[in-house]
């Protein structure tokens, strides 16, 4: 059954979209990852224009993260003060990112920029994930010492210190805003939540306790993806609500399945497969830059 996507202006099989949402949902449920970085390149591969894929995916992440954010909020696993600093940075980053997006769109180079970002991002994530999972596999029987959270000296040396009660910290507010800013740019250019970056950054750079990390990052993600959705809708007319909705339907069901599969199977050992998937997607996008194209000319509609 075909469905016409009103903003992307193409007809796509409805089950393909729900299925993609479902598969990515299963993977994100199994491995506890956001899924935006998997979904957006898959949308490129099925022919959704990158600009539409990114903006609609940001909206999907908003929906997919919302319930998690509420659950953590109820359990008081959110450091609100830190969250607001991250959101402040995130919103600024999103405004900046959408502006970059608009400029490159006008130059006809948007696709190049989005894809280059993805090559770098998928490459780095894939390699890290691959080696981490190799380590987990080989050290599985032994006891690995848990890495101690450490505060970088440069973080402690920064001014504008604030007290964060929920995280039990007294640190500068500058790094939190900067982290938020960086993730906001990623959200608007790549259509990802950025949990991948923000979680390690909170633990290793800010030194936040793990208990509040996930909740606070989800709290930040829903605000930043919300603002990103709005800005893309207003500035670039690139949010396809039908696309986001179908991906949400598949994604939510998939995530529930994924969590159950993850409990039964040893997901940590399957993580190496996820790493390989990420690396192969990276490779596919990279090759497109070097293989002589079949069609040299392309037409882009003026909006």
């Amino acid at each position, binding site marked *: *059954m*075909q*469905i*016409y996507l*009103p*903003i992307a*202006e*193409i*007809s796509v099989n409805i089950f393909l979209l729900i299925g993609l949402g479902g598969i990515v949902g299963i993977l994100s449920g199994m491995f506890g990852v956001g899924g935006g970085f998997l979904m957006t390149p898959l949308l490129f591969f099925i022919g959704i224009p990158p600009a539409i894929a990114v903006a609609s995916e940001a*909206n*999907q992440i*908003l*929906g*997919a*993260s*919302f*319930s*998690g954010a*509420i*659950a953590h909020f109820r359990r008081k696993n959110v450091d609100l003060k830190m969250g607001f600093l991250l959101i402040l940075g995130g919103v600024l980053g999103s405004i900046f990112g959408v502006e970059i997006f608009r400029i490159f769109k006008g*130059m*006809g*180079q948007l*696709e*190049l920029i989005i894809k280059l970002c993805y090559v770098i991002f998928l490459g780095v994530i894939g390699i890290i994930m691959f080696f981490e999972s190799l380590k987990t596999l080989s050290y599985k029987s032994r006891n690995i010492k848990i890495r101690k959270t450490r505060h970088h000296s440069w973080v402690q040396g920064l001014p504008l210190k604030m007290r964060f009660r929920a995280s039990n910290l007294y640190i500068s507010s500058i790094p939190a805003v900067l982290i938020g800013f960086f993730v906001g740019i990623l959200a608007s250019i790549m259509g990802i939540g950025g949990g991948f970056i923000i979680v390690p950054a909170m633990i290793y750079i800010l030194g936040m306790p793990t208990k509040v990390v996930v909740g606070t990052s989800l709290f930040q993600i*829903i605000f930043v993806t*919300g603002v990103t*959705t*709005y*800005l*893309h*809708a*207003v500035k670039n*007319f690139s*949010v396809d*609500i*039908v696309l*986001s*909705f179908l991906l*949400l*339907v598949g994604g*939510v069901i998939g995530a*529930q399945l994924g969590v159950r599969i993850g409990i039964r199977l040893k997901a940590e050992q399957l993580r190496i497969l996820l790493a390989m998937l990420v690396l192969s997607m990276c490779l596919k996008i990279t090759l*497109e*830059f*070097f*293989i*002589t*194209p079949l*069609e*040299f*000319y*392309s*037409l*882009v*509609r*003026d909006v």
Partner: protein
Amino acid sequence: MKLFFKLVIMIFIYNLSSISARSAEVPPSLVTDLSKKVISIDVSFSGSKFHIFGAIKKYASQISPIDQPPFDIIIEVIGPPVEMNIFKKEKKYGFWINKKIQTLNSMPSFYSISGTKSLKDLLPIKTQRSNEIGISEHINLSDGKLKKEFIDHIISNGKAKKQYNLNNTPITLLENTLFSNEIDFPTNLYEGNYKVKIHLIRFEEVLATKQDIIYVKKIGVQNWINYLAYQEPKLYGIACIIIAISFGFGASLVFRKKV
């Protein structure tokens, strides 16, 4: 006296007009109709078809070689014009990247041509140009002439997306009078007026051209979403946020009960 003059002038004019009618041959004209006047795009739109019917009408009182066959028919369907930027992939630092070539002022978002014979067999290029028949005549560039290479690529791009159909099955002309043609619309249609131009051709000359309009419009949810997204983007952005949040929230309620 005045009345008499008027009468003389009237008779004179009547005679003049009848003489001119007799001396010039009236070429045959076209009578045509479309099976649909409106095509609606809704959420489940998966392309559409319509028929063009027509007949060649000759003047009974007239016996003239212009009424004799061979007649040929060319039918063009021209979608609403769109403005496009052309990019060409060029190798730079080992990468294939897009380079903007120029802006097309207008090109048809859809184009289909069919005929009893192919256009190039029926009309010389010069006549095609003066009558504005053929795909190249509908592609206009912002500055200067468009290189043939670009036109070819625009056309092959359109063909690949099924927006340009240049190799349709030939039209058969029954008894040198009746004809019909089926047009296939693809899924990626633009909203607007689609011109249907029917040309009657005899010995490399266009005898008559009839123009009809078929209107393609988005309806239902489709139209609604499009209107909001482009006319009320702020409202649309907020609606997208609300829909995503309420879906996420609803799903968490449903699954919490099951677990």
